[in-house]
């Protein structure tokens, strides 16, 4: 009986926000797609030439494509499980209340609050050749005979970047899991106890399955997050040495704002953003179906 009026109301609520998103996200998304077929320079924005697939062609002949793909994969493989496992463990240890639990929850969330710029600068300083970590490893623990060149060895530099990502993300994952764990009905545990299930069995057979949906949400968000890695790369290694630590966004940013090649950068953005959007979309669909 209210249907007609309600539909009008619906648009009043719906349109402002959705228009805004279309204006600043969807429209740029389309623009980006169009730019990727042009020779489009930052130094002369007013005239661009259509060059078809040349930008994509150039990207596939660039060694950096494989380097940045490899780096993103490595970064993702370390940070996504790293954050999930450690974040879950923190939540599992802290979801029941005991004296001091609030302190630990707050402390574990502090890295989330620390900005990427600040965190990158600190990590850079800790991992310099004559930094605190090398002092500990070389002069105190004698695990290494000479200082380790963390930031100039590509593989180690990527590992440091991943450690920063994990350090910064654990708290966020913990909060999501804390929320989920509090929704697991106590009755399930009680029943399991009656059946004589141990702590480990309860964890594996009750807790983990009960938070499956949260896990999958976290996983999607973390994969997106790992594709977003930029500030730490730019401030800690600048993509160097020799572009060995370059990731998608640092490469794209340099192409756009150092080499002024906007068309090339737009093509890059598409090449990376599209598969990850599809991947995440599939994941979300699968969750829905399995519900």
């Amino acid at each position: 009986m209210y249907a007609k009026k309600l539909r009008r109301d619906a648009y009043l609520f719906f349109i402002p926000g959705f228009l805004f998103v279309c204006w600043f996200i969807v429209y740029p998304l389309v623009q980006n797609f169009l730019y990727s077929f042009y020779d489009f320079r930052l130094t002369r924005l007013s005239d661009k030439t259509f060059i078809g697939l040349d930008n994509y062609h150039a990207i596939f002949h660039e060694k950096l494509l494989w380097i940045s793909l490899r780096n993103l994969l490595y970064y993702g493989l370390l940070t996504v499980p790293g954050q999930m496992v450690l974040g879950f463990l923190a939540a599992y240890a802290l979801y029941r209340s005991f004296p001091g639990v609030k302190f630990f929850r707050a402390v574990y969330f502090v890295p989330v609050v620390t900005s990427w710029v600040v965190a990158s600068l600190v990590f850079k300083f800790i991992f310099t050749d004559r930094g605190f970590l090398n002092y500990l490893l070389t002069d105190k623990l004698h695990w290494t005979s000479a200082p380790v060149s963390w930031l100039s060895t590509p593989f180690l530099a990527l590992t440091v970047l991943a450690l920063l990502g994990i350090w910064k993300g654990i708290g966020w994952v913990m909060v999501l899991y804390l929320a989920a764990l509090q929704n697991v009905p106590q009755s399930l545990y009680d029943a399991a106890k009656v059946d004589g299930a141990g702590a480990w069995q309860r964890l594996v057979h009750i807790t983990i399955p009960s938070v499956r949906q949260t896990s999958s949400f976290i996983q999607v968000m973390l994969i997106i997050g790992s594709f977003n890695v930029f500030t730490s790369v730019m401030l800690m290694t600048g993509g160097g040495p020799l572009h060995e630590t370059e990731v998608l966004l640092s490469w794209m940013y340099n192409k756009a704002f150092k080499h002024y090649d906007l068309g090339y950068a737009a093509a890059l953005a598409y090449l990376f953003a599209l598969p990850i959007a599809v991947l995440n979309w599939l994941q979300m669909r699968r969750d829905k179906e399995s519900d």
Partner: protein
Amino acid sequence: MSARLSRVSIGIALFIGAAISLYPLFFMLSTSLQPNAVILEYPPRLWPSEPTWDHYWEAWNSQQFGRSLLNSAFVTVAAFFALFALSSMLAFAYSRFEFRGKRISWLVLMACLTIPVMTLIIPQFVMIRDMGLYDSYWALVLVYTASGIPFTTFLLKGFFDSISREIDESVFMDGGSSRLLFLRIVMPLSKPAFVPAIIFNALYIWEEFPWALTIINDPAKRTLPVALANFQGQYTTQWGVVFAGSLLALLPILVLFLFLQRYLIRGMTAGAVKG
């Protein structure tokens, strides 16, 4: 016996985790209190023998630091209120109404959620330039607002969905409008969900770096992350000043978080992501 042992080891693990979480902050504090001449000394010192506050004064006085702090606060608050208003309305529409295009627009919104925002930096740059908003607060506020909407809508819709629809019926029965339902019923009941929305958006906007770096020149309009990154010179970095500035920048958001953190988990619990 074994239960006690495992409790002790969990306790130890928790303390180690806490130490790792806090160590970089401690490290910043200790470095920021050391005179320049001491910072690069080897072996590094854990705590300065003669702490000095000089770097704090230097950080505060250079780069118009106080100004950047206000800029960040202004941009964060303005963008947050804008995106919160738009997102809550949008979430309300999705949660309570049926309308044409609902499904497809929701898919579009969720697709926006999965795209790394920074890949849009080029068209957004061109657009902002064409609008004549390069090097202005608008450039920051508009883009931050739009970027925050998909996630916030997602978060709030989850919470709104958990509010019983029987209330809707009774409101309409009594002749109430949907505006009344939104402002007087659904929003007040959803307060716990505001906390995660505030924390995540405030964090994102407060620390956003690449866009602000690209679009802002005027030091009077710089936000904190840009001001901080500027302390890092081409060949030299004054670490003491950098970390003094970093701690000053961290303080407001840390205080905000400490205020809100006890409501955070409740907001998430009832919110979008159910176990």
